[in-house]
């Protein structure tokens, strides 16, 4: 297991290096000078020159890349002062430290993701398993149709709809906002309630369908029939024999979903104007803010890769064939 983790981590570093290089060099392929933004309206060539030098844009691109990457590991010294590791530099747009901004924004994204995931996983798996158990009945058909309809909805459609109804018309809740959990748990909960519900509607529908089909598949396995032939009760067969195998596709998809949600639920955050990583990513791309783009990009990629590794480790936990081969 340890060997597996080490090997996968090494692989992850390689992937992250490739992602960073591609992002970095692509950035320079965009014909837009990031210094123009910092320079403002009354920009002179001299001022631009100064900003170029301050941002380090006068150096050759590979050297910039090298300095940027080594800064992440060892920290860097900037004109503004020392930047301790992990140093992703300062924003071109507003001179904020990149790492600080990410750390600042991350709790919003985590709150949104974890809260939503707990709900959609629980309800989705439950509904899917009930549907599988009652396969072919009216209940199953209702669940299946309902989840098909909901999963074909989009957040940017349901989101504003719910906002209009719950916030503006009925005035049941306030406009969604992020309040740190540590400061005001109740405010945290109320502020995120609508986004959670909207995120989970769509994911729940997907997970219901996934859990249902995967459970039905498992129930048809030979070894499940053997368990019945041994006289195991329906409950034992369902929860001990069939359930375990049905988790594998669910874990796979859940890992992918969670990884990408941690990197920023762009559409959701944008729909509800929540200051998370997703909005940060969108803004920084619009502002040609290289250090910020790089920072968010690598941060998000790290999570996706991390969850990939976790998923593989969970496989080994679920299935002895993976563990022992």
């Amino acid at each position, binding site marked *: 297991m340890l060997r597996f983790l080490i090997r996968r981590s090494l692989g992850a570093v390689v992937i992250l290096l490739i992602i960073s290089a591609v992002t970095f060099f692509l950035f320079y392929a965009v014909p837009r000078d990031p210094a123009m933004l910092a320079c403002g309206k009354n920009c002179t060539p001299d001022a631009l020159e100064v900003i170029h030098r301050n941002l380090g844009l006068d150096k050759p691109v590979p050297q910039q890349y090298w300095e940027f990457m080594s800064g992440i590991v060892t920290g860097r010294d900037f004109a503004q002062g020392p930047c301790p590791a992990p140093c992703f530099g300062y924003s071109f747009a507003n001179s904020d430290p990149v790492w600080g901004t990410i750390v600042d924004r991350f709790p919003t994204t985590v709150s949104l993701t974890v809260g939503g995931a707990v709900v959609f996983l629980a309800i989705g798996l439950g509904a899917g398993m009930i549907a599988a158990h009652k396969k072919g009945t009216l209940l199953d058909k209702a669940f299946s149709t309902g989840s098909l309809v909901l999963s074909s909805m989009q957040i940017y459609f349901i989101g504003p709809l719910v906002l209009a109804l719950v916030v503006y018309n009925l005035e049941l809740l306030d406009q969604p906002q992020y309040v740190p959990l540590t400061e005001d748990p109740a405010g945290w909960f109320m502020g995120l309630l609508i986004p959670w519900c909207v995120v989970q509607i769509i994911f729940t529908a997907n997970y219901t369908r996934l859990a249902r089909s995967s459970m039905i598949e498992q129930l048809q*396995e*030979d070894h*499940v029939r*053997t368990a019945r*032939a041994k*006289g*195991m009760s329906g409950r034992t067969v369902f929860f001990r024999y069939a359930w375990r195998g049905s988790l594998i596709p669910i874990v796979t998809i859940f890992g992918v979903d969670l990884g990408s949600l941690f990197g920023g639920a762009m559409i959701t955050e944008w729909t509800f104007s929540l200051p998370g990583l997703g909005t940060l990513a969108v803004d920084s791309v619009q502002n040609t803010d290289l250090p910020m783009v790089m920072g968010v990009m690598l941060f998000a990629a790290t999570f996706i890769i991390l969850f990939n590794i976790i998923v593989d480790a969970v496989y080994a936990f679920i299935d002895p064939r993976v563990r022992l081969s």
Partner: protein
Amino acid sequence: MTTLTKEADVPAPRGGGDAFLSVRDLYVHFATEDGTVKAVDGLSFELERGRTLGVVGESGSGKSVTNLSILGLHNPASTEVSGEILLDGQELTGARQKTLESLRGNKMAMIFQDPLTALSPYYTVGRQIAEPYRKHEGASKREAHERAVEMLDKVGIPNARTRAKDYPHQFSGGMRQRAMIAMALVCNPDLLIADEPTTALDVTVQAQILDLLKDLQQEFGSAIIFITHDLGVIGNVADDILVMYGGRAVERGTVEDVLRRPQHPYTWGLLSSMPRLSGDVDEALTPIHGTPPSLLSPPGGCAFHPRCDFAEQVAGGLSCTADRPELPPGRSAACHLTDEQKRTLFTEQIKPRLGQAPRRRDV
């Protein structure tokens, strides 16, 4: 299937009361999108303790479905089972799930074809064997584990104590089937159903497993239903044979009767289409022409008539296309040909085809 006594060739129905397992007029129909599949369409047989009934047939003959329905393993939502299944006097067709659960793995157990997929990949072999013992015998975890080790040892797994902690994928194919047998026998079942238990195995391993089942039967005294498509295997393990075709039994008798003096044209066809180690290599095989029947719309009358070479010879106002031949109790074949015709046809036409090489060493 022991309405037969060894010494008597005449039909000798024993009243049915003393048969350990008695299946009467069993119908198993599935509803599918294409229509009703008549997987088993009126089947009756009996079996005594300590005897082995071989059920032979090709795919779609209903042989596996019959046995799944004895255990009640069919899907109740889409399957309609009617008729009588009496196990030791207890009616199973209408029995509640709870009742069936208490019998399965306990009084009746099953061995499946592919031991790799039939064992759960997620639990150790020892645990899977111990499980029914805990449930049915109320044993503690430790007792059940000891019993599992004992059973693994019994079926010839070396280092049973260590191997009990292994997962099925760490076993070889033959060892998995041994583990499956250990699991089926752990509660000393009175009835063991083996569904093609050696089809997925290599021939040398098959020989070991068949002998193992025979030896274990001597010791445990279970009645065995042995399902297979292989007449050679059936000849090796069974006392009595039931030949199935299109969801019905077409011939029954002792092994000697059915293999040496077969009466049904389908059995003739099976025998003359398979090469044998001692057969005459210059004699071409005689296949059964056509293909097995569709169970959605089986042929009227005798299901075998479209493939039968002797249908025109049926006399006495009977028609193979319209009248369905019944299978009388005892040694019999469900065919409209007269006994005289069956004897003559077999001796004159079929036997020569079975091309016995004069002596093996002169092949």
